[in-house]
């Protein structure tokens, strides 16, 4: 009763003063973030709007606006190879995500759990972790060159030279095995990208838990399955979500390894957008294709928001200035 009366009595001047104080409090964070807003608005938000508008035009390399309504969208649904492209994209996403996550779990369990913790060979564990970091550190162009170099044609590639040395016929890797090569190379590089995340998760396991399990007579493998892997659940979720997104939108690796070939057999959805932008110069159509990709990635982003619980990751500042 008293309180509400108080509130009513609070005159205009105090209210405006309050509002001013709130505004003043906003000024500092806003100024700190201003340098971030400017480039993001110019180079991300404006392009998104441009993309939406361009998707209704038949813009070509002359960059002339010519509105054609929903024709680009109709063309996407009428494109006969679209189902093949989508199936291939799905294969790449599922294949790479599975391979890379399983591969890096395997590497991290051996290097961080067995070498570091069980056998206490910390230097060996570190050495192999660094080896497994190399693909991720290598610039994509060099990484993909190495793969092209290894699986090059007869007389060029290492694999074919080795086959020749043991008397087997040379194989045309990039004609018959291009999708497999793409899967292998991309999953290797993305497996390499999760080594640090996974191994730091394992290192956070309190030693006492492992020790007491040992005292209870648990074997190393049992501990690995029942204690170590559950600790990896969160990083695995994180990596899986990012890997799905990353593989769905990957085009640089495809451009560098196979160039979409042979005969368009490694063209994925992202690469198809790239082709429309840079090979066919059909910008309007490319923009319409991009709209779907953006919708997909926003959906993924929203799923991540739910999974990562972004709200809970914001701590209340313990200062009020």
């Amino acid at each position: 009763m008293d309180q509400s009366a108080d509130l009513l009595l609070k005159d205009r001047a105090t209210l405006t003063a309050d509002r001013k104080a709130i505004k003043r409090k906003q000024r500092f964070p806003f100024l700190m973030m201003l340098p971030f807003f400017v480039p993001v608005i110019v180079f991300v938000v404006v392009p998104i709007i441009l993309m939406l508008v361009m998707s209704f035009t038949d813009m070509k390399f002359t960059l002339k606006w010519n509105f054609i309504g929903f024709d680009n969208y109709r063309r996407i649904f009428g494109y006969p190879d679209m189902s093949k492209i989508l199936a291939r994209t799905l294969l790449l996403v599922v294949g790479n995500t599975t391979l890379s996550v399983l591969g890096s779990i395997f590497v991290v369990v051996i290097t961080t759990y067995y070498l570091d913790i069980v056998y206490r060979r910390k230097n060996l564990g570190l050495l192999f972790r660094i080896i497994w970091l190399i693909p991720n550190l290598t610039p994509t162009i060099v990484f993909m060159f190495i793969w092209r170099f290894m699986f090059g044609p007869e007389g060029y590639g290492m694999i074919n030279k080795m086959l020749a040395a043991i008397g087997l016929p040379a194989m045309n890797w990039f004609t018959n095995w291009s999708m497999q090569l793409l899967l292998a190379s991309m999953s290797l590089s993305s497996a390499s990208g999760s080594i640090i995340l996974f191994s730091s998760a394992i290192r956070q396991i309190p030693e006492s838990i492992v020790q007491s399990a040992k005292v209870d007579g648990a074997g190393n493998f049992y501990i690995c399955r029942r204690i170590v892997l559950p600790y990896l659940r969160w990083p695995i979720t994180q990596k899986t979500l990012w890997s799905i997104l990353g593989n769905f939108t990957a085009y640089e690796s495809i451009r560098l390894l196979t160039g979409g070939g042979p005969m368009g057999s490694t063209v994925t959805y992202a690469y198809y957008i790239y082709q429309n932008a840079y090979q066919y110069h059909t910008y309007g159509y490319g923009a319409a294709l991009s709209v779907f990709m953006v919708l997909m990635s926003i959906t993924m982003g929203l799923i991540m928001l739910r999974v990562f619980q972004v709200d809970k990751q914001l701590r209340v500042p313990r200062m009020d200035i």
Partner: protein
Amino acid sequence: MSDSKTLRLGRMRDDDRPYGVWKFLLVILVFSAVILVPYGWLITSAFRDTSGAWTLSNWSFLVKETQLRRGIHLPPAIKPLMSSFSFAIIMAASVVTITVPAAYALSRTEFQGRRLMAKLLIVLDAFPQVALLTSFIMLLSKMHLVNKLIGVVFLKVAMYLPGSIWLMKGFFDHISWDIEWASIVDGASRFKTFLRIIVPAAKPGISVILVNSFLSGWGEYILINLFISGHSATMSSFIGAMMDGEDGRYLVPPGVLAAACFFYIIPVIITFAVSQKTLLQVRQGGSKQ
């Protein structure tokens, strides 16, 4: 000196570490062959000619012109090397100067729309670069930034910021409030406290952002290839020009390409070696858990 050595050797002998590590060592060694063999092949090829004899002639691209096709030559690698360096340094510098204050504000101040901001960062971080390619063409040509490396730097930095701010925010979350309170009580403003107290305390995190963005700029190929014509804008497009060939064959002998690739990753190796401790240990502080 020698005493401690014998002591260590003595401890090695009655080592209480369990036996049988060789099984796991063998497994991981075999598994690592997918990395060790190709990189070994790359490095040895850089020093061999087409017949397999050891040579240094592959490295002449550093000082001499390299012929791609008849009449088309690549200049010596010095100029692309320099522009690669400046590209990466400008990128790293701008990422750090923008990321650090913004991440501080997100981590340690309260403002309207803070939650929204955090969500926006995640969604923007998940935003695919390929979807914006078509609009980038339009935007860069309207801004008269076509064929200029600085235009590509802008694009890269803008796409890179959301992720790096989120990572940096994680580092700021772990800094104690006591030092900040102490500084405020001493009469410093919030900004001064940020500069003098918080930034030095967040140094490991800042160096992670610095190294990561430097490496990202150093390795950039596709955007440079798309928006910059010619083939010696940076080291990556220099190598890209050599790689442009039909069905797996290249415009230059493979040894030269291997040498150029090896040369291109030397700065990466040096950067990693210098910052290895911070990168390996601190990275966990950023991305949640």
